[in-house]
């Protein structure tokens, strides 16, 4: 093996080109999709749990537990708000999943938002977090 492969590291947003472009989903978005799928299966069979894989079951449990936003409108709003701030899909989803409360916490969770030469000053991050916190209140 010649040359050095650039090591994968999400903290620096080094996750492979194909994943930078791939659509990343937040837990709350996945919860809505899997719930819908499960409902479809319930209509098609008497025992839907038999039809789904372990992976599906474990993921459904996980995303339902770790979704801060349950209402489909709220979920849409979260993505809409975060999309205003020049973020990579991956960064957007980690923020939507972890819901940091302060600028300091946001940077600790997604270190790459402070790097890559983008204009993400603390004020912009502060505004983003405060916009997000408004959604929670009216859920």
């Amino acid at each position, binding site marked *: 093996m010649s040359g050095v492969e650039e090591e994968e*590291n*999400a903290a620096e947003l*080094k996750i492979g080109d194909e994943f930078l472009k*791939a659509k990343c*989903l937040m837990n709350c978005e996945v919860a809505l999709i899997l719930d819908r799928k499960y409902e479809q299966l319930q209509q098609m069979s008497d025992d839907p749990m038999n039809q789904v894989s372990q*992976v599906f079951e474990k*993921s459904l449990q996980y995303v339902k537990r770790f979704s801060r936003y349950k209402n489909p409108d709220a979920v849409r709003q979260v993505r809409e708000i975060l999309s205003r701030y020049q973020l990579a899909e*991956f960064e957007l989803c980690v923020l939507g999943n972890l819901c940091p409360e302060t600028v300091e916490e946001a940077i600790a969770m997604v270190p790459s938002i402070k790097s890559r030469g983008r204009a993400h000053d603390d004020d912009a991050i502060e505004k983003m977090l405060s916009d997000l916190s408004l959604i929670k209140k009216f859920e």
Partner: protein
Amino acid sequence: MYLKTQLEWNVLISPENLDPRGLLLQRSIIIRLLEEFANRKATKDHGYFLSVTTLEKIGEGKIRPESGDVLFPVRYNCLTFKPFKGEVLKGVVDRIVKHGVFLICGPVGNVFLSVKTMPDYQYVHGENPTFMNNESSKIEKGGVVRFVVLGTKWVETEKEFQVLASLAGDFLGPVS
């Protein structure tokens, strides 16, 4: 991280499921695709296969002369889960041992948090062992822990990822 990906797989349909009217054929293809999807479980590149979301295109079938089966290339969208090094995730504590904590994170049943990457936490032995730090922050079975992925390893024989976790960083540790 949960990902929406587009994949193209070949689905093999046996002759008795081939209906010239096409409707039954599409249904057979979808059923075979879902079976194959569930069987594959996970790959190193895309992670764990969760669910097929939409069918994009069914290509022209190619007949296998020996069996009469027909191979259809199928393009579809699906949801997968893949752990990434450097990502901060939440996991649920499954088991506590002297040298660390085993966590479950979505479809990943194998996340290990070594005591070496739990700064200031000490093992507290007992019937229900826990880890505690100086500020009485406690890590116990069933609890939720925010961790950063230190590294991942794809195990081909088990078709799963092993994940190494760490609490070395701000805002990491047990959360309510």
